[in-house]
């Protein structure tokens, strides 16, 4: 079986995998990082969003082998030293989730959004940028609030996403 190596959440990892292994399967089944979820498996819902070389990607729609040598950050890589990332903290404070299934993808998409758009996004921008993430519980209102709040906190606090 072909071998793949990459850096996940700052750690070098490798595995012998079937060539059809998707990144999300490698993360969940080989590395046991089950924070990244599979919702739709058709690249619509965004539950599986992770960061690859600094940008958001749907890990259900990329082969693990394509990412040889890549730097991957999952939801498990955001909190540092037991302290939540400002975006995670903002989701908690603003009740930006109910069942929590879409939350890892929402947060990874949100951090990517702030990295690209900066801390001062208006509501329309956040809603537009969230079009690749689907939540079936909250109606998005508190998610949008949480992202606006988290964006501000990320802008102020030193960036905790050190794994990138």
């Amino acid at each position, binding site marked *: 079986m*072909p071998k793949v190596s990459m850096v996940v959440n700052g750690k070098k990892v490798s595995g012998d995998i*079937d*060539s*059809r292994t*998707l990144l999300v399967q490698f993360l969940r089944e080989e590395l046991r990082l089950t924070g990244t979820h599979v919702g739709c*498996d*058709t*690249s*619509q819902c*965004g539950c599986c*969003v992770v960061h*690859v070389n600094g*940008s*958001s*990607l*749907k890990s259900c*729609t*990329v*082969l693990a*082998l*394509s990412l*040889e040598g890549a730097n991957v950050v999952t939801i498990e890589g955001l909190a540092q030293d037991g302290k939540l990332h400002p975006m995670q903290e903002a989701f908690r404070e603003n009740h930006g989730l109910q069942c929590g299934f879409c939350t890892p993808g929402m947060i990874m*998409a949100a951090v*990517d*959004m702030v990295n*690209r758009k900066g801390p001062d996004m208006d509501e329309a921008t956040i809603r537009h*940028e969230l*079009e*690749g*993430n689907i939540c079936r519980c909250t109606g998005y209102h508190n998610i949008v609030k949480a992202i606006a709040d988290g964006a501000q906190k990320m802008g102020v606090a030193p960036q905790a996403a050190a794994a990138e």
Partner: protein
Amino acid sequence: MYAFTYHRPETARKATNLVAKVEDAKFLAGGMTLLPTMKQRLAAPTALIDLSTAEDMRGIELKGRNVVIGAMTRHFDVANSALVKEKIPALADLASMIGDPAVRHRGTIGGSVANNDPAADYPSACLALNATIITNKRKIPADEFFVGLFETALEEGELIVKISFPIPSKAAYEKFRNPASRYAIVGVFVAKKGSEARVAVTGAGSGGVFRPNRLEAALTAKFHPKGLDGLSFPAEGLNTDIHADAEYRAHLIMVMTRRAVAKALAK
């Protein structure tokens, strides 16, 4: 997904050499369509040739009066390219409307054009801007490239290496999106170069992207939304599906064309 062997060549030439040697091999660009299709077992190539490390297929450059974009350039990079924004802002605008941010980080212009999905965005830009599709073997004018639904002039094993877009004097893209998939229910790209206006419609035609000749003639005579006054578009030959029927699409073609012309003039 069925099993396949995986290859990752470093150049376009190595990729085309491989595809000639390996039986039943398919090129993998961004994979935003091919991988979901393989997961549904609608495609089952026995080998994949991943182009993601083919550095010579990436990048954007100005060549004379053309913007030339490598086939493996991601949508995100086209949308944010200073060169594209300056020379053909409508093309950057179109790229920024494809899918969602995560899809734009991975999907490529060459993949979209080679796939020729009847609701994809890029084919309309190629057709309206009179682009040239440059493969490892030849140069194909956009007018001859898009043959039908998911069908192109590409031969077996032929690879798009880059796409050359002549710089228009005015251009714009407007799309009416499916709210779930973000694909175009109707998308219209208008471009004016010299005295000629070209229009391309995606999402609507039962044979894929097409040029509405009567609208082009009207806009060549007068490149203004008013140039379309009194015109309507026939519903025959347009798609009907759960999202929109042919009459509605015909109506949307006129609305999107007017909006695109107004947007092109406002720039």
